[in-house]
C-alpha cells in the first residue's frame, strides 16, 4: 500500500469551525485560512477597495440543495462567484465498484433525485452494451413513456422552483400538484414515488398495469389544458419577465465551449439533443421536434431557458401520445442469468436527462462488479456557467440565474 503524500493537501480544512473564526474581528469569514493554492483562488480571494465576501449556504432556502456559494460583492453588485461543492458527496462511483451490476441501479438512483429514471437509464444502457443484450421493444417503449412522464414532472418542478426563487410563493404548490399526479402514476408500476429503481439490465421491472393506465388516461385528458394554464401562469407577469429577461445571456459558442448540454444549450441556439443527435432506444421511430431558442448572436437569457422547458413539455406530451398508441406486446425483460459477468471491455452510453446529457462510462474486467463506473452529470457542468454569468449582476440575480440553469445537487456532488 503506497501512501501518497500530497503537498497540496496539508492545509487545514476550510470547514473546520475552530479555524474559521477570525480572532481579530471575531466573526466567521468566508476566506479560507490558508494561502491560495491556485491562480484562480488567489484571484478570487483577494479583495479590492469596497468589496466584501458574502457566504450563501450550505443551508440556504434557495441554493437547490446543499451548495455553498461565496460571493464577492461590491455593494449590491456581484463581482465574482465561487461555488464550493462536496456537501452531498456520497462516493457513488466508489460504491458502484463494489456492487453487483444489478445493485448499481439502486446506487445510482439518488444522483438526480428529481428525475431518477434517467439516472438508471444510462448505466443500464452501458451494461447492455457490455453484455450485448437486446432489449425487447415493449420494454423500450415503456422506458420512453416513463422517461418522458418524468421529464414533464421535472420541468413542472423547475417552473415552481424558479418562481419560488424569485419570490412568488404560489406556483411551487401548483407544480407539486402536477408532480404528485405523475409520481402517483409511476408509483403504480414501480412501487416508489421518487427513487424508482425500475429499470433493469435488459428491460424494466414491472409491466404496465390497470391503475397506471387509468391514472395516465385521466391525466392525459387534462394535460394539454393544464399545460396551457401553466404557461399562462407566469408568462404575462411583468415582474417575472423583467427579472428574467436579459439576465444570464449565453451565446452559442460559449455554451459549447463550456460543455453545457440540455435545455441550457438549446436555449443558446444550438440544436443539440441526444435523442436526435445520437438516437437510442426507440426515439428514431417517434416523431417530435427539438425546440430551440436564443438563435440570435447574443444567445439566450434566463427567460429563454424558462420558455424552452415549457416547449419541451409540449413535445414530451406528443411523445407520450405516440408511445401509447404504438405500444407493442411482448416481454418486458430480456432473459439474462442472475449473476452477470460481462466480457472485459468498455462501454459508454448517454441519455437526454431533463437537465442535459447524462452519461455513463463503464469498464468491466470480467468479474461480477464493474471495474470503473464514471458518471457524467449534466448539472455538474452546467453549474460552471453561474460563475461566468454572474459577473456584474445583482445579488438577487444570482438566485434567478442559478434557478434558470436548474441544477440538482445530488447529481453535482455525486
Amino acid at each position, binding site marked *: 500500500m503506497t501512501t501518497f503524500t500530497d503537498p497540496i493537501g496539508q492545509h487545514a480544512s476550510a470547514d473546520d469551525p475552530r479555524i474559521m473564526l477570525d480572532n481579530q474581528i471575531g466573526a466567521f469569514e468566508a476566506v479560507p485560512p490558508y494561502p491560495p493554492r491556485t491562480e484562480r483562488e488567489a484571484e478570487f480571494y483577494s479583495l479590492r477597495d469596497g468589496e466584501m465576501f458574502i457566504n450563501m449556504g450550505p443551508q440556504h432556502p434557495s441554493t437547490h440543495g446543499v451548495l455553498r456559494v461565496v460571493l464577492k460583492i461590491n455593494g449590491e453588485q456581484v463581482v465574482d462567484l465561487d461555488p464550493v461543492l462536496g456537501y452531498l458527496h456520497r462516493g457513488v462511483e466508489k460504491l458502484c465498484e463494489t456492487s453487483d451490476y444489478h445493485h448499481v441501479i439502486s446506487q445510482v438512483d439518488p444522483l438526480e433525485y428529481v428525475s431518477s429514471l434517467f439516472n438508471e437509464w444510462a448505466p443500464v444502457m452501458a451494461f447492455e452494451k457490455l453484455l450485448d443484450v437486446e432489449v425487447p421493444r415493449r420494454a423500450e417503449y415503456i422506458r420512453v413513456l416513463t422517461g418522458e412522464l418524468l421529464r414533464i414532472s421535472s420541468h413542472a418542478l423547475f417552473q415552481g422552483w424558479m418562481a419560488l426563487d424569485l419570490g412568488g410563493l404560489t406556483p411551487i404548490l401548483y407544480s407539486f400538484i402536477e408532480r404528485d399526479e405523475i409520481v402517483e402514476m409511476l408509483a403504480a408500476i414501480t412501487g416508489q414515488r421518487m427513487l424508482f429503481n425500475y429499470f433493469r439490465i435488459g428491460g424494466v421491472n414491472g409491466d404496465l398495469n390497470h391503475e397506471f393506465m387509468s391514472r395516465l388516461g385521466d391525466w392525459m385528458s387534462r394535460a394539454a389544458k393544464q399545460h396551457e394554464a401553466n404557461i399562462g401562469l407566469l408568462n404575462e407577469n411583468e415582474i417575472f419577465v423583467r427579472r428574467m429577461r436579459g439576465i444570464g445571456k449565453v451565446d452559442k459558442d460559449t455554451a459549447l465551449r*463550456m460543455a453545457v448540454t440540455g435545455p441550457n444549450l438549446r436555449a443558446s441556439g444550438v440544436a443539440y439533443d441526444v435523442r436526435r443527435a445520437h438516437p437510442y432506444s426507440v426515439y428514431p421511430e417517434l416523431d417530435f421536434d427539438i425546440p430551440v431558442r436564443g438563435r440570435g448572436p447574443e444567445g439566450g437569457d434566463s427567460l429563454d431557458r424558462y420558455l424552452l422547458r415549457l416547449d419541451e413539455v409540449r413535445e414530451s406530451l406528443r411523445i407520450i401520445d405516440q408511445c401509447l398508441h404504438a405500444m407493442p406486446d411482448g416481454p418486458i425483460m430480456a432473459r439474462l442469468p442472475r449473476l452477470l459477468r460481462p466480457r472485459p471491455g468498455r462501454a459508454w452510453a448517454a441519455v437526454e436527462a431533463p437537465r442535459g446529457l447524462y452519461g455513463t462510462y463503464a469498464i468491466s474486467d470480467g468479474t461480477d462488479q464493474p471495474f470503473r463506473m464514471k458518471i457524467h452529470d449534466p448539472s455538474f457542468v452546467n453549474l460552471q456557467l453561474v460563475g461566468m454569468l454572474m459577473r456584474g449582476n445583482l445579488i438577487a440575480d444570482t438566485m434567478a440565474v442559478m434557478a434558470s440553469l436548474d441544477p440538482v445537487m445530488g447529481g453535482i456532488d455525486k
Partner: protein
Amino acid sequence: MDRTLRARLEKRFADRMSGPVRQRHDTTEIRIGAADLTEVMTALHDEPDLEFVLLADLAGVDTGDHMQVVYHLWSARTPDWLRVIADGLPRDNPRIATLTGLWPGAEWMERETYDMFGIIFEGNRDLRRIYMPPDYTSFPLRKDFYLPDDAARSPGGGVRHMERTHVPTGTPGRVARRTVKA
C-alpha cells in the same frame, strides 16, 4: 459503427495512436499517449472534417498499474461517439495537459479527476479539490485507497472505533491513540 470515421482517424493520427482504432456498438475508440493530448484534441476540435465540438465526458481511470484519462466527444459529422484514451500515466506522478484551453468547461471535470485520482492537469488555473475537504490527504478512487487508514488522519478523527484504533506506523503525532480494554 462508422467505417469512414475509422479511416479518417487512422489517416490523420496514425503516428500518435498507440493501438488500433476499436469500434464496438456505436463508439469508436482511439488510444494516445499523454504527451500528444493537446495536439490530438486541437485537431479533433478544429479540423473541418472532424469537428468534434462537444466534450461529453472527462474521466480518470486507475487500471491498477497505470492511470488513464478518458475523453468522450461528439461530432455532427459522424453518428458515432469518439472515445479518446490518454494512456500510460505513471501512478506515482500522473500528469497530463489540460483541456481548458479548448473547452473551459472542462475545468471542473479535471478538478474532479484530480480530487479522485491525483492526476495533475498542467495548465488548469484552478486545480484544487472539489468534493473532498482541502486538507484531505488521499485520493479516493484510486485502487490503493483504504478508508480507515485515511480517516484516522483527518481532523474529524474517524467516526468508528476501528478508524481510531487502526493507526498506521509512522504517522506523525496529531492522532489520538486509544487502547481498548479487552
